[in-house]
């Protein structure tokens, strides 16, 4: 009798332990993700009755020039944004990680210092760096009067050609240490076992790095690429904060995150094309773009267990 009683109680308690987490995640995360599949089939401005339109949102998105041009532009610019950031992170990240892995004096101080921007709020970083790069701001004063590198101030965020790379630079400044730390931990991991053997063979430093260290950095590189890719294709905080949902100047900084936001909540006061169904459709398309990266991440996580 006591045993049956225990089992029953244990089962009840198991359910009670599971319920809060499952409810919280289920209602506010999992359900909305599944909801994408339903919502993309309707035309609905957020209030009033929903209209079922089938796959019309997708035909509009790929067929109607109004949406197609925005999609192509946002996707293309998002790709450029991603490439600049990933190039900076992998090249500079590896470079600095290597320098920190040597017997460099004060390397712990450098490592902590480099890590400083990482935990800062994106909003604060965006506003801070925007102030720094204004035409009358400190960076331009330094470039024009201090170093005499240019004749007149550069409009970093006002110039359509420069705005997107500038935002990418902001992102890289903020997140660089993430790459440095991951690459550094990969280097440190192989340091002892492998390098000894290579050095015994009389290989030079560069040969050892090339033969022993670089190959083992591949997993770290892939991880950085995947995580940054998933992030920049859904997160448009910098653009929203500094350039607005229309991605000024002239949509030169428009990326998927802003396009998605605009389609659901409107860009400016004048926008009329607000459609939750279209936003869900764009969300799904973006999810499909990042899906290979996402699946890779999932497999890696599951394999680890």
């Amino acid at each position, binding site marked *: 009798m006591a045993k049956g009683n225990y089992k029953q109680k244990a089962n009840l308690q198991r359910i009670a332990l599971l319920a809060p987490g499952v409810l919280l995640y289920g209602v*506010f*995360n999992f359900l909305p993700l599944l909801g994408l599949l339903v919502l993309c089939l309707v035309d609905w401005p957020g209030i009033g009755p929903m209209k079922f339109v089938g796959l019309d949102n997708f035909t509009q998105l790929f067929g109607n020039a109004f949406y197609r041009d925005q999609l192509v532009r946002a996707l293309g610019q998002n790709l450029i944004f991603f490439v600049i950031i990933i190039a900076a992170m992998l090249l500079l990240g590896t470079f600095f990680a290597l*320098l920190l892995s040597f017997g460099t004096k004060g390397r712990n101080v*450098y490592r902590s210092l480099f890590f400083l921007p*990482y935990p800062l709020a*994106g909003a604060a970083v965006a506003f801070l760096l925007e102030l720094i790069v204004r035409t009358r701001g400190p960076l331009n004063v330094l470039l024009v009067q201090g170093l005499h590198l240019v004749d007149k101030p550069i409009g970093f965020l006002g110039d359509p050609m420069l705005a997107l790379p500038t935002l990418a630079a902001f992102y890289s400044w903020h997140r660089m240490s993430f790459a440095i730390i991951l690459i550094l931990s990969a280097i440190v991991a192989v340091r002892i076992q492998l390098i000894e053997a290579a050095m015994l063979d009389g290989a030079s430093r560069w040969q050892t790095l090339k033969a022993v260290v670089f190959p083992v950095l591949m997993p770290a590189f892939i991880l950085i690429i995947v995580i940054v890719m*998933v992030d920049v294709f859904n*997160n448009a*905080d910098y653009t929203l904060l500094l350039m607005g949902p229309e991605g000024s100047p002239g949509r030169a900084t428009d990326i998927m995150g802003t396009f998605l936001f605009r389609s659901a909540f409107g860009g400016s006061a004048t926008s009329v094309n607000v459609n939750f169904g279209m936003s869900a459709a764009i969300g799904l398309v973006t999810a499909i773009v990042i899906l290979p990266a996402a699946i890779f991440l999932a497999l890696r996580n599951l394999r680890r*267990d």
Partner: protein
Amino acid sequence: MERLFKLKPLEQIVVQFILLVYAAIVVFPIGIAILNSLKPNLGEVYKAPFALPSVWSWDNYAEAWFGANFQTYFLNSAIISLSCVVLVTLCASTTAFVIVRMPFKGSTFLFGCFMLGVVIPIRLAMAPLFVVVKSLRLLDSLLGVILVQSASMMPVAVFILTAFLRAVPAELEDAAKMDGALPFEIYWRVVVPLIRPALATVALLTFVQSWNEYFLPLIFLQSESNFPITLGMTQFRLRFDVQWHLMFAGILIMLVPTIIAFLLASRQFIQGLTQGGLKE
């Protein structure tokens, strides 16, 4: 074996120079902000951004603090992020405990559902999420933002905690079970103390991310009295945009809590980063 990593004196100088240049790039914006936040007027920021202030105007911080509703923003941010920390550590640890130690039919599927949240960011589903929050009448409430933000952090937290729990042996729990302890007791007395390091990592990541979150409050909050500091900062910017010295002061006020959190726990930060292998 240390030969590879040992630097000759000349190499040491070159490496030091390169690292100093990058350190300068990292410190430059923050240093400029500190310097210029203490200047008495805009003219000095324009004319000589690298010079020391003629008068050290500590009042700028008070002016920024009271000029915007920083105390309201801070309070809201504190309520949101502390609630998120409590909710996420509690819910994620109980979930991970059941999934790992008391598996049942469908627990693998359940874990898979959580992993879907790891790989597909909730922002992509902002439209359906908005519908859910609206139909629960949680728009423009701190509770709504707390639930949404905690839910968005659940997948990573569950992932970190299940991975950690799988790596520790279940001997203590089995012993407790033999003594007739029920799951509640096992969870609270045995598992929580056991997974404390992982809980600390999760709590820290959750605190920083929820404190820094801009996008979710932007969608779900409307009245300024509910704004966390990230949204408050945009309000502040609307009003003080041309007064750069006050902008710098406001930005620094906003940065202080995360910088303190970082100084107190930089090691856990870096651990969390490499352990989870997941951003934030």
